[in-house]
């Protein structure tokens, strides 16, 4: 078979199961693609070639013995480098953890491997998942497959770039304020942030525990659904994991009688190009039978402020363990305990991470906690309430994924402007809601744009169905970036 990278995960799995292609062929094909393209793309921090080959050989043996094959058998999957694969390095794109070998498997990884996925490697990200452009990686930038001068988005930029360039067909990401959806939108693929608690966070290096959620990247909504069937399981190691059975995702193509809410006033300041695309998307939804209605979500304008208080507060404690005592960097010059802490953290953390730790420490400090942390918690509750009220009227909420398409690397230097990237994605994290980013067309630079659909808590299945209907009507997901369309050799 040629052009394996033009297939979806579902299609490739089928080809493997039917015997059209061996797992070893798949592994070698995609490893070759990674080898050829990673230099220019910066998507992978580490490539797990031997491991992948070994797994492929086992899969071929399994198939030759007619043993049952997992749901993701033969599908190459890229893992964001803040999730543990036992025995492999989890760097979090930080100098601090450049030598840190994970002592255990993340639950999501265990489930993927259990269902016979072929893990390709660990992908680039903003250090500790803090950023919206992947420019905060301590190692190198990741690039957008549609235009290498542009960012793939962040923080899960590496996984998004890897899947968009078809170096893997599935990717994992973690989404704290949009870190799956925004890069998916920028790279023209599907990205999904499940309901908080749907996917176990065990083995995910925490950024902001109450907001973090693991989810998949894929080239089709059906592939997202397939991945969710695998990783969307209860996990006893994560106390916030939902104690519910795994769901199965049947897909349909109509939106008849589905009510889609649009927070028009919150979207008032959309730039013309983004607005035009969004309105087109609404037309598509309507044409599929959906009813569009205006909803009030004005409170969401406080989302970014709330997010940068709560997320940094949690991060300041989650990252306190990186102290040079047990693992990671220990600065050799340090002579006292305080110096070990100070020098190790100074050396190990990048600028953005330090900034957020300081912010978080500040908002929790005595004398400031009431004005910042506690107030932000109250506003978070209001956001949750506002969504609840909105979902009394509609089945899903439509918004753009980001204010614009992917921007050129190094083009945004104002931190606040960078933080505004996440204005439409953060609200779903604050309320723990499932939200999906689906390709919705291109801007004038031929950079992809994305439509975001947000559903009520636990309504992962219907939300993915709506996204599937939209995708089937638009077919933007089958577009491959021209640079990466050709075959590996």
């Amino acid at each position: 078979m040629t052009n394996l990278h033009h297939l979806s995960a579902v299609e490739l799995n089928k080809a493997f199961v039917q015997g059209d292609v061996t797992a070893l062929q798949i592994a070698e094909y995609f490893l070759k693609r990674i080898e050829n393209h990673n230099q220019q793309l910066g998507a992978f921090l580490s490539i797990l070639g031997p491991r992948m080959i070994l797994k492929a050989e086992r899969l071929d043996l399994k198939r030759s013995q007619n043993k049952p094959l997992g749901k993701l058998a033969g599908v190459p999957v890229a893992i964001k480098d803040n999730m543990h694969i036992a025995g492999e390095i989890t760097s979090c794109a930080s100098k601090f953890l450049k030598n840190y070998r994970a002592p255990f498997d993340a639950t999501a990884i265990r489930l993927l491997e259990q269902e016979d996925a072929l893990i390709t490697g660990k992908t680039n990200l903003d250090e500790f998942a803090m950023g919206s452009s992947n420019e905060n990686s301590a190692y190198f930038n990741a690039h957008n497959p549609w235009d290498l001068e542009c960012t793939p988005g962040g923080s899960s930029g590496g996984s998004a770039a890897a899947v968009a360039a078809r170096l893997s067909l599935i990717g994992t990401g973690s989404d704290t304020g949009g870190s799956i959806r925004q890069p998916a939108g920028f790279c023209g693929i599907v990205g999904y942030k499940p309901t908080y608690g749907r996917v176990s966070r065990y083995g995910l290096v925490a950024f902001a525990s109450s907001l973090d959620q693991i989810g998949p990247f894929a080239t089709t909504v059906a592939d997202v659904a397939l991945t969710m069937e695998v990783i969307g399981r209860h996990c006893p190691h994560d106390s916030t994991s939902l104690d519910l059975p795994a769901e199965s995702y049947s897909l349909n193509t109509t939106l008849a009688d589905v009510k889609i809410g649009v927070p028009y006033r919150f979207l008032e300041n959309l730039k013309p190009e983004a607005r035009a695309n969004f309105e087109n998307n609404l037309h598509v939804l309507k044409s599929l039978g959906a009813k569009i209605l205006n909803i009030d979500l004005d409170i969401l304008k406080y989302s970014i402020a709330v997010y940068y208080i709560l997320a940094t507060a949690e991060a300041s404690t989650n990252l306190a363990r990186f102290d040079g005592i047990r693992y990671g960097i220990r600065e050799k010059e340090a002579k006292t305990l305080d110096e070990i802490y100070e020098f190790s953290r100074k050396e190990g953390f990048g600028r953005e991470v330090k900034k957020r730790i300081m912010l978080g420490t500040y908002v929790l400090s005595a004398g400031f906690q009431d004005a910042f942390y506690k107030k932000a918690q109250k506003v978070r509750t209001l956001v949750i309430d506002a969504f609840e009220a909105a979902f009394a009227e509609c089945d899903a909420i439509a918004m753009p994924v980001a204010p614009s398409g992917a921007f050129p690397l190094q083009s945004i230097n104002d931190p606040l402007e960078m933080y505004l990237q996440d204005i439409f994605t953060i609200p779903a994290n604050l309320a723990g809601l499932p939200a999906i980013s689906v390709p919705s067309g291109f801007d004038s630079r031929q950079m992809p744009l994305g439509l975001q659909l947000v559903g009520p808590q636990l309504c992962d299945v219907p939300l993915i169905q709506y996204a599937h209907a939209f995708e089937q009507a638009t077919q933007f997901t089958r577009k491959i970036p021209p640079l990466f369309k050709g075959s590996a050799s």
Partner: protein
Amino acid sequence: MKKLPYELWEPVVGLEIHVQLNTKSKLFSSAPNRFGDEPNTNISVVCTGQPGALPVLNKEAVKKAVQFGLAVKANVALFSKFDRKSYFYPDSPRNFQITQFERPIVTGGSVTTFVEGELKTFQINRAHLEDDAGMLKHFTNFAGVDYNRAGAPLIEIVSEPCIHSPKEASAYASAIRAIMLYLNASDGNMEEGSLRIDANISVRPKGSTELRPRVEIKNMNSFSFLEMAVESEMKRQVALYLDNPHRTPEELIPPGTYRWDIETKSALFMRAKENSDDYRYFPEPDLAPIVLSQEYVDDIRNTLPELPHDRYNRYVSDLNLSPYSAALLIQEKELCDYFEAAMKHSLNPRQLCNWITIEFTGRLKERGQTLISHKIPPLHVAKLVHMIDNNVITGRIAKQVADDMVASPELDPETIIQQNPDYRPLSEIAEIEPIVDQILAANPQSIADYKAGREKALAFLVGQVMKLTRGKASPAVVNELILKKI
């Protein structure tokens, strides 16, 4: 130091007692909760704060906390939650502790116990669950951290500042320990650090109700250190006030944290409070709140074991023990359980209590042992008391038998008596009668005196017989024989 009028002052003490719960695994991980193993063997990715590891609450620890709350008649919260308490130290694997700051599982409650013979009640403010830190070990050219203890479940019990003497402090603390032991919620082993006490101490003129600045003395692991610490800190503060009548309490006693030094038997200054850490408490996002049903709490209430105070009441009212003996007995759960076991074979609680708490405990103390550690079966002690009660042996011989039981703990007192002719009871009349005859023949004057109404003369005669039999004869039998013959 000059003599100061301490009697005009009283200390105001509040205690924070950290009790390690004896659950199988740790508070938030499945690693074994065990003391004394090789360093860093009882650990998991959670105990060492590995990135990506998450805490999962141990339900057994929650149950023990609820049991404690109910045992002290406190309010058990149906909704409580955990918070992060941030501070950097190498023994703290995440550099934050998971504790219950805002909504503890237990609030209120009280403990009633004897203080120097007087019954007193102490108020509890709150009790909450939290995880323990690891331990630093210092070597000649480096320091190591042992995380075996990291994550061990603790319940921290905070009293109101309602303690007003060193003896009260230790009585309250030992009452808490006793409750924990009765609940089987902790091993209470103070040498191993299973119960550690922080004391907040201030003083005030007697009769006043003010609260003056206090200092905190941390980490005491013995009741006698606690008494010493309260005593010495009280004296220090009183002396400061008396020597500096024109300075304010705030100037004289800057709030600070001290550590009890075992070597010098004094409190060593650690840090001033104003420089102390801001712990930046906020809700622990990795754990759901603890939500308990009323049914769950009621179930635990209905299955609470007998508690020290209940046992005390039963001993005094049903078993007719003296309040002193009862209080002594309930103090040590192991010994009290021993008494319970022996009571199954005995009809004489008072004597049994006496033999257990005084005779045997005294003998064994010299060897650094207890009845339990020395493995003397409760049945044997009960048998010994039984033989005294039935006049098989005299009290004096019983003491010798007790010596032998301590020397050979496996031996039954019946066997000891059989094997030693000296202990053979002389209850047989045939054996005693000639001796009685001999004494009566030698003391006609005493017989006359008795007949003339002097009771003491009879006692003299009995004593003479006892002397001749070297105490082996049963006094009751001798008494009976003499009366018959005169």
